[in-house]
Each structure stands twice: as C-alpha cells, then as structure tokens.
C-alpha cells in the first residue's frame, strides 16, 4: 500500500505491506532509529512517538494507520539546533542511563508539559506509568521532567 506519513515535519511516501508496524516503518524504512522496539505487547513504551500530537506505542500502530497523519519522533524534539527543555532536563538530572527508554519517556514528558506545565511528582509518575525503565528506578526521570517544568516556567 502506498502511504504518506509526515514525520518530524517532512512527508515520506512509501509502498509498505499492510501489516508493517509503525515502529518498523520508522526504523527500517526511514532509518529513524531513535524509536526503539522492546516488547510487542505495548507494555514497555520504548516505541512511544507522537501521532498527531498524542503519545502512541508505535509497536501497536500499523504504518498504514499513520497514512495522512503527523508523527513526531525523538529526532524531531530538537528544533533549529536548540534542544527541547525536556532533553536538557534529562541531561541535567541524569534521567537516563542506557538510553533505550529515553526517547519514549521524553516524548511522553513533552506531551504532559504541553497539557500541564506544572505537573506534580505523582502526575508525572502517572503519565509515564505505561512505560518501563530498567535503569533509573524512575527517580531521576521524574526529577528531569520537574526540572523541565520549572525551567519553562522561569523562561
């Protein structure tokens, strides 16, 4: 099937098998390997991307379902050479170790802060509760998101 998906602002047209998962479309067809593949059952969330601005698990979305829609991946967070505040927060607060869950965590965090610029610790934990991290025990991820919230409030 021919599909056109706008990824990080750029339209991509490809002929794909109807069964192809969005995560594989992004990784294998577009070579945007910042989106990862971790569990097949939509539990781990390392494949989270924004689909029309909402976080989705791209292992549970068919590429054809994204036809005509807009996808944002981790590669789209940095704008004009300027890191997103969330990216800065993860560096500042050591919110990542192996880096495998990080793209999905940051995309969910970006979505959360766009809806709620001042989330509590509990709200941040709730927002990322559909995603797993095996390295950080979540502590510094929560701090990273709070850092980003405070940083954006101050600017």
């Amino acid at each position: 099937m021919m599909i056109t998906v706008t990824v990080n602002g750029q339209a991509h047209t490809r002929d794909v098998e109807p069964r192809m998962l969005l995560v594989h479309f992004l990784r294998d067809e577009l070579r945007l390997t910042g989106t990862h593949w971790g569990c097949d059952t939509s539990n781990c969330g390392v494949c989270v991307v924004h689909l029309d601005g909402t976080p989705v698990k791209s292992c549970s979305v068919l590429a054809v379902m994204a036809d005509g829609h807009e996808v944002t991946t981790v590669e789209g967070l940095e704008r004009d050479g300027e890191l997103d505040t969330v990216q800065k927060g993860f560096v500042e607060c050591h919110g990542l170790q192996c880096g495998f869950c990080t793209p999905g965590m940051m995309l969910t965090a970006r979505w959360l802060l766009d809806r709620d610029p001042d989330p509590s610790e509990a709200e941040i934990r709730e927002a990322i509760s559909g995603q797993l991290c095996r390295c950080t025990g979540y502590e510094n991820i929560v701090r990273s998101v709070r850092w980003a919230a405070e940083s954006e409030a101050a600017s």
Partner: protein
Amino acid sequence: MSAYGRMHRKEDARFIRGRGTYTDDVNLPGMLHGAVLRSPHAHAAIVSIDTSAAEAHPKVKAVITGETLAGLRLAWMPTLSGDTQAVLATDKVRFQGQEVAFVVAEDRYAARDALELIDVEYEPLPAVVDARRALDEDAPVIRDDLDGKADNHIFDWQAGDKAATDAIFERAQVTVAQDMLYPRVHPAPLETCGAVADFDRVTGKLTVWCPTQAPHAHRTLYAMVAGIPEHKIRVISPDIGGGFGNKVGIYPGYVCAIVGSIVTGRPVKWMEDRSENLMSTSFARDYHMHGEIAATRDGRIQAIRVKVLADHGAFNGTAQPTKYPAGFFHVFTGSYDLAAAHCEVTGVYTNKAPGGVAYACSFRVTEAVYLVERLVDVLAVELDMDPAELRMRNLLKPGQFPYTSPTGWEYDSGDYPRTLRLALDMAGYDKLRAEQADRRAAGGPLMGIGISFFTEAVGAGPRKHMDILGLGMADGAELRVHPTGKAVLRVSCQSQGQGHETTFAQIVAQELGMSPGDVEVVHGDTDQTPFGLGTYGSRSTPVSGAATAMVARKVRERARVVASAMLEASPEDLEWAEGRWAVRGDPATGKSMAEIALAAHSGLELPEGVEGHLDAVCVYNPPNLTYPFGAYVCVVDVDPGTGQVKVRRFVAVDDCGVRINPMIVEGQIHGGLADGVGMALMQLMAFDEEGNHLGASFMDYLLPTAVECPSWELGETVTPSPHHPIGAKGVGESATVGSPAAVVNAVVDALRPYGVRHADMPLTPANVWLTIQGRPFRTDLAIP
C-alpha cells in the same frame, strides 16, 4: 581541582537525540534477517524436521537446522560453566523456547513467516519442572546426550567448617530454621539480545555486532568453537540497552547469525523478540534454600548453616569463575561476627532455560544476602527482639577489618554500625516503630518496617583464583596522550548504561591534572581495545577503573621524566602538585600535561631510556575483591483485604568507598532499588506441570513502573577500599542485592499480627492474601 564529583554524562548527548547505536540500529548493505524456530515443548524427542516448504519461500535464503550445524561441528557449544549446550536441537528439546531451526530471509517479516512453514514432529516426554523432584529415582534424565549420564545431578559444593558449625548448633541456646525460595527471575533489559554477523569471504574476517557485556570473551570463544582465527574476528558491542547480566553469555542465536552469514555470504541480523528473551536467555536465581541460625538467648549470633538446591535449567550455563559453581555464595555469613558457618549447594538440571547467574546478582551474592537477612529477621521474631537492635549487636566492628569470614573471604574494609545508624536515623526508625505499635494497638491498617544490611564481594578477581573458561579475570587499559594534550583511553569493559565514558574520563583527568572533557574513552570493540573480561559482577570500577588509574599513573611517571628534561632537573627533584610537574618547592616552574605531551613528541632531547610520546598500557590483576556494603530500611503498607503491598518509603545508605561521580553512583542505586521492589513484589516466572513458561511476556512478567516505586531516599558513608588504587568499590549491583530482603522483611513484619514468619517472593497480592489466610504456596510452580 578534583576531577571527581557530579558531572553531566558525555554519552547523554547522543542518547537524548535518538542517536545512540544499538545492535538493531546497525544496517549493512545487502543485510539479511534471521529468525529462530523454538520448541513449544519443555521436553520432547525430535522425530523429524521438514524445512522444504520454508526453503521454497521466495524470500528465504537459507534454513539452518542442527543437522546443518552438526556438519560444521557447531551443533553444540561450550557454556561458560564448561557444560555443553545445543545451538540448534538435534536429538531432543530440553526446555520450552529452545532453539530448533534458523531461517535467513530478505526481511524480518518474511523470516518469521517462514518459521511457520517448518514442520517439526515431536514426541513429548515427561518434563522435570520441580527442582525438588529432579533427583528422584524415577525422574526423566534430561541430559542423556552426556556420556553415561543417568540422573539430573550437576554438582555438589560446600564451604565453611561443617564440624565446627554442627558443634555450635548442638549446644546452642536458640536455633531457628527457615525454608525459603529465591525464585527464578529474569533481568529483562529493555533491549533484547541479538546480533549482526558479517563474514567477509574474501578476507576471512568475521565482524559481529552484539550487545555483549564481555566482547573479548566472546571473540575468544568464537575462535575456540568455530575455529576462525582470533585475529580474524572482531566483536563490536555498540550501545547496549541495559544488560544486568542478561548479556554476558553467548546465545545460540548469535552462532546462528554467524553461520547464516557464512552460508549466505551476506550480513545477517537477528534480533529476538520479548518472549524469546524471557523464555530462553539467562534467567537468575532459582535457589531453594534451607537456612538455620544459632544464637544465644540474648541475641548473639554464633553460626549459620545452609543447604541449597540450585535449579540450573537444562544446560549448566551459569557465567561465573570456574572454581565457584555456586558463585560467591560464601558471603551468606553476611555482615556478622560468626564463630562458624557451613553451606552445601547441589545443582540440578530441569527442563527450563539455562542460566542462573544474571540480574545484577554479583555471582550469587544476592541469594546469600537474602538468605542471611531473612534468617536474622526470623531469629529476631523468635527472640522477640527488635531486628535493628539484633543486627547492631552482631555487626562486625571497624577494628575487625580486614576481616576473614568463616568461609575464608577477606572483607577489605567497613564501618558497619555507622552505616546502619545513619539509615535508621534517616528513616526515623523509632518513630516508625511507634507508629506501627499505635496502629497495631488500634487494629489499624497494616504497616511493616524491614531492614537489610548487606556486604557484597565484587570486582572479580584475583587471577590465581578466578577465571572463566581458563581466561583470568584481569583487565587491560591503554592510554595515549596526544601531542596537544588530549587523551584517549581504551578499556576492556563495556558500559550498558553505567556511564563509563564519563567516569573513566574523570579517573584519567584526576590522575593527570586534565579536564574530563579532554579524555575520550573507547570501549566495546575488540579491534580497538585491550583484552579483558568485561562488565558484570560490579567489576568495571574495581578492575578496569583500577587499570585506568594505574595506566594514568604510568603516563604520569613518563611525563615526569620528560618534564625533568624540559626543566633541566633530575626527575627525583620534581614534585606532582596541582596537576603539574614542578621543581620541588617552586610551583611556578610547573608543566601541565599538555605542555609535557607536546615536548614528548618534539625534538627535545630526552633522557636515556625514555622513548618519547606519552603512552602506556596496563593489565590490572586485582589483589582481592572489594566489599561494598549498605543498610536499607523499607516501609510498607499492606491491605489485608486485597493483599496489595504499597512501598511507602525506602531509605538506602550505601558505602561503596570513594565515589568518582556521585550522580552516576546514585543513579545505579536507584535502578537497583526498583529491581528489588520488582523482584520482591511482582516479577513472577512460574511453570506449569508440562514445563510451560507462564511469564513469557510483559503482560505476565510484571516489572515495576513509576507508580510502584517510591521516591528513593539515599544516604552515604565512605570507607575507602585499602587495596584499590583510588579507594573505590563496585556499586552497580549493591541495591539489587540488598533491597529484596528489606522489602520482604517489611511485608512479613506487617503480617506479624497474623503469625506469619515467612513468605516467598514475589509477594503478589494473591500471595500475600493467601499467606494471611494461612495458605502459602509455591511461587515457582503453577501446579495445583
């Protein structure tokens, strides 16, 4: 100025941009994709395998079976414990999920399609699922491939003094015994295992990208097994999405990808999916333990004795030093001053995946710490004594270090009472106990307080005692300071998220008076780094970190000679101060490493015996292990109606000696604490009577999320290691080792009003509820 301290990680720049390179991100021209066909049975004879339909698939390039491999003498491979393991099964399958065939196709979807076209006829056999029945007379023999093997026994091993221990038990005032299971768990890194193999038929060079924690060991093993000359093998371990011990060994899929590339002449990528990862790769623990503790009535612990049944699965594939079939379980004597101790461990085969040593366990230290910390709590209940007080009374005293344990291990340094006191103070222990007493008196909600005090033995290890398959556990480091004073460090260990590129740069910078930003750390590529055994068992800082400090000191001494030529003084007249070599007493003469490096590469006439340049190599053979320790306090609330446990607080005070980058150390501890909560409360991997794996996806094998984890409260004490060049100890596994006992002790403490003395992990709501009802069950079995 110290280069140690909090510093942002160098590796973050690529990860936050999605620019890391994990194995599945490697794409080579003409690359094919592999998929593994796995056994649906735990134990079955293979009658026939028909691959013709798969071979006829238009996108399939090769189908490999055990028969193909047998022709190459690769059907079996050695395990890290000197056993053999089937790469692809030929005679029979021995666990559910075992590798049976390998398909190579043009894309990953086609490879999976073709698996459906392979017809395997099995003849199911009775499975050995319960480790406690593995040695029964009538148990089916799993390893009939081994000459003369007529049972499922692997090894018997013991440590300590049996006679002295038994004598103490005979006359002890108080003894208590407790059976406990440390159930099978899986490390479940978010990146699964996989490989990209590229065999160049022209040059004969094999390149393997693979998320291995031990790239050099992999290369040597490939050379030994496949007969490819070692200098023609390059193993590249790129960014790794978490390891935790899951990525130490060589899995059949790696060998299949290599054979697939040899057979097709094209690069082959194989990435397992989550179910494959959980079902077939290294699990951890599975220790069935019977512990006994002897004490005086006033709470003086005298001796411990232990019997363990160790379930190693269908092949003995534990990754640990050769001499130690039960790893470093010797440290079951814990942090206490015992007169004697003894343990016996028996290893058995069962129809489950191989493994055993993984998941941040420090070579079975995890099981040992859990055992002793549960036993101490059981004793506290028996004596009706506060568990904190009982521990404080028995902890080793600072003056006893270096301390030789009853099983013969020399603990390097410690101040245990200080660490426990700090943890109790941070937790507000007395107030917590008062709150608990009030609640109990009022019949209020259940609340429990659990303590654990652990000592680890990490940083394997002294070469004369420790090797894996004959390879001594020393690690190399190479350091070059380039003419403009920028340095490149090459190390044998490999980060899976521990931040080596930052921490090791800090070590070099500290030793040479440089900025960490001027030190590049190269790792994970066998063509570019010196030999060493890699990163597991918390050994990177104790071994490679020491090698790094030592190689930097060698460079510093060379720099001294060069500086002496620059300053026209004798080397003995120079002193190292504030990161410069200066004439003693005249700091203004100081030469920085950058100035010295340029001179070392220049036409400056150098003294006899100095070759110029500023390079050095070092192999570090640790004189002893390092012994980090810590005190943890966990507070839980338990709902007796549902059995739900909520971790309210968790206080962790760790002492890992000198902290190079405290930010990274704390991050390591946070992660381990979450692991401990997960293992204690959630992560269930049971098997039914046919050997079906009931935890083979993240829908069933539950890992903690942000809402199950509290905000961790950390504290620290610093007791430097006396034998490590910079006084550091390993820390990567401390929290995983120490935390499960604290959580379980807290839950059992909460259930004390119901007369509960013990319950096995994981303490799921169902398990807790049944325990309250007086009906505890075997968490490892789903057999009614």
